[in-house]
């Protein structure tokens, strides 16, 4: 167990970040190359102003028609994605690790709040699962990979929650937490979780097309 802990919290962390960051860069560079080779014209349509306009609209809760049509989905998606980003970056347990390793002191979340945000993430994942299983239009386009992706995202938060609350088998949950977090990061560039990277680009292109060429809002 100890060896395993040392591995997942040592070398595997490095491997994870190399794959996560390297993978994201690789995918972005590949995308740009592909645009350059096949659809060079896209560069000439890109507009910074309209890209930003589109991205900002779609990052503002209830700013778009479709968000207003699905208020529950909108609230949950925003709460989910925000919590998903905030928790791993500012959890005090993570911040302490940074401090111990490199002596960097950063702002950290109060534990109670972090606990609450974790529950939001877990609850959202349950909501997404139920939505996938019950909404005909979502179920029809769902395949095993969608459920797998959802599990990959939910796992670090469930195991982290259990580890924090020391719900028996602390060490096991801690190891599973670290491992599942690493799996999630490594999966981002190579699964549809890559929307974390690519949605900015697809949004920017559509924003530029609609704003710059079609003179029309895209929300």
């Amino acid at each position, binding site marked *: 167990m100890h060896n395993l802990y040392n591995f997942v919290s040592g070398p595997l962390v490095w491997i994870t970040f190399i794959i996560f960051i390297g993978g994201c860069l690789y995918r972005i560079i590949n995308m740009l190359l592909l645009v350059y080779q096949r*659809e060079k014209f896209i560069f000439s349509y890109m507009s910074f102003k309209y890209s930003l306009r589109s991205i900002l609209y779609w990052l503002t809760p209830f700013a778009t028609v479709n968000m207003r049509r699905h208020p529950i989905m909108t609230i949950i998606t925003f709460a989910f994605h925000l919590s998903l980003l905030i928790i791993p970056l500012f959890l005090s347990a993570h911040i302490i690790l940074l401090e111990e390793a490199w002596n960097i002191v950063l702002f950290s979340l109060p534990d109670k709040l972090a606990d609450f945000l974790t529950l939001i993430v877990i609850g959202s994942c349950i909501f997404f699962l139920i939505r996938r299983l019950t909404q*005909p*239009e979502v*179920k029809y386009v769902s395949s095993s990979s969608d459920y797998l992706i959802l599990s990959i995202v939910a796992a670090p938060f469930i195991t982290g929650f259990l580890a924090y609350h020391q719900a028996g088998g602390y060490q096991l949950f801690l190891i599973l937490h670290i491992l599942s977090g690493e799996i999630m990061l490594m999966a981002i560039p*190579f699964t*549809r979780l890559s929307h974390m990277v690519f949605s900015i680009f*697809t949004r920017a292109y*559509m924003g530029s097309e*609609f704003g710059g060429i079609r003179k029309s809002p895209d929300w």
Partner: protein
Amino acid sequence: MAEPAVKSAIKPATKPATKTDNKIIDKGLDQGIAGLTREKITRVINQVIKGETGARLKLYVETCIHCGLCSDACHYYLSHDKNPLFSPVGKVKQTMWEMLKKKGRVSPDFIKKASIIASTECNVCKRCAMYCPFGIDIAYIMLIVRRICHLLGVTPLYIQDTAHSHSATMNQMWVKDDEWIDTLQWQEEEAQAEIPSLRIPLEKEGADIMYSVIGPEPKFQAQLIYQTAILMNVAGINWTMPATPGWDNSDMAMYTGDNEIMGRLKKVHYETAARLKVKKIVMGECGHAFRSVFDMGNRWLGWKMPPIPVVHAVEFYFDLIKEGKIKIKKKFQDAVSLHDPCNIIRGAGLAEKIRYVINAICENFIEMEPNREHNYCCGAGGGVINCGAPYKLNRMKGSKVKADQLSTAKAKGAKLIIAPCHNCHSGLEDITQHYQINMEIKFIGDILYEVMEKPE
């Protein structure tokens, strides 16, 4: 990314998702697939995917998180009681995902089904692009599917005939060169009864404006050319119409995936304008033609924007009224509603200008809900109506939500609908007939002609 197939995911969820398109008899499709082999299908699909698409298709497919949020955007989905087979992403699943997953190894029957879905169950109106959180352009994906079907020779017969007309005559309706000139001179004579000095100047080099129309205008709506001639003459515009091929700005080849013909059509159109040395092209009230000259055809030819400025009729009317070149004698009295056509609203941002024009010529304007960029499609656009009789009933079923929208506008008092697009016009006429909504459909030009000041 490899996507393991799960049987349960393919089954419809809570309600049976059934369709009737197996019953469709269309020679264009049936004879098309009769000669197909799996090898040819695989080769063509991969040739298009690898040779003609790039980062867009790849990203659109790999970024889509399968959330289904695009569904509510689609009038087919809404009209078919939210049947997931008709949602935008549902249509991608049945066509492009399958082609990619199987690396092109799909059956001839699959190609027939894909052609029906892409050509007759999607109007490529791009409404769903405004509902997808990532801005995925599903209409683009459907056009790629049509392109593949075209290269396999599996295109609905009626629209294929139109594409043939384009390729043989450079116009949509098999109009012969002399018939074209004859029609213009006939309309000139007719209009001279109203304004004796009126001309429809043919081949006038150096005119400010070349006016271009779509094939159906000389074929069976010549009065629209008459109305425009009156408008041009009253406003004192220095204009001309070509007496050669290149007069037709329409383009059904764009919708069959025959990009090569699309390119030829746009080239002859622009070259005609260049030959006449005009400053700009003004085009009639047509939506898809605008998409072709402003968006798809010009890009195929390598022009970022049209090489000669193109002005849609709506914008032209706006300028004429705003500059006072056309004055309104008495506003149109009946309450009107407006159908916003996708290609000039989502395609060119004319939503406010069109309202300015309508308010200038109509006393009583009642908005439809939803409107502007969010208006529901007429069900006819994107070449769907041009696929002809075999699909009419399905088109009507897919337009139920549009019929409800029209009925609501009627209940608010609207007597007629303004639709500044030929496809919308025909589509709405079918819908009002099928659903027995007693509303007349008019072009802006029809009303403008009626209410404008003309010399006594």
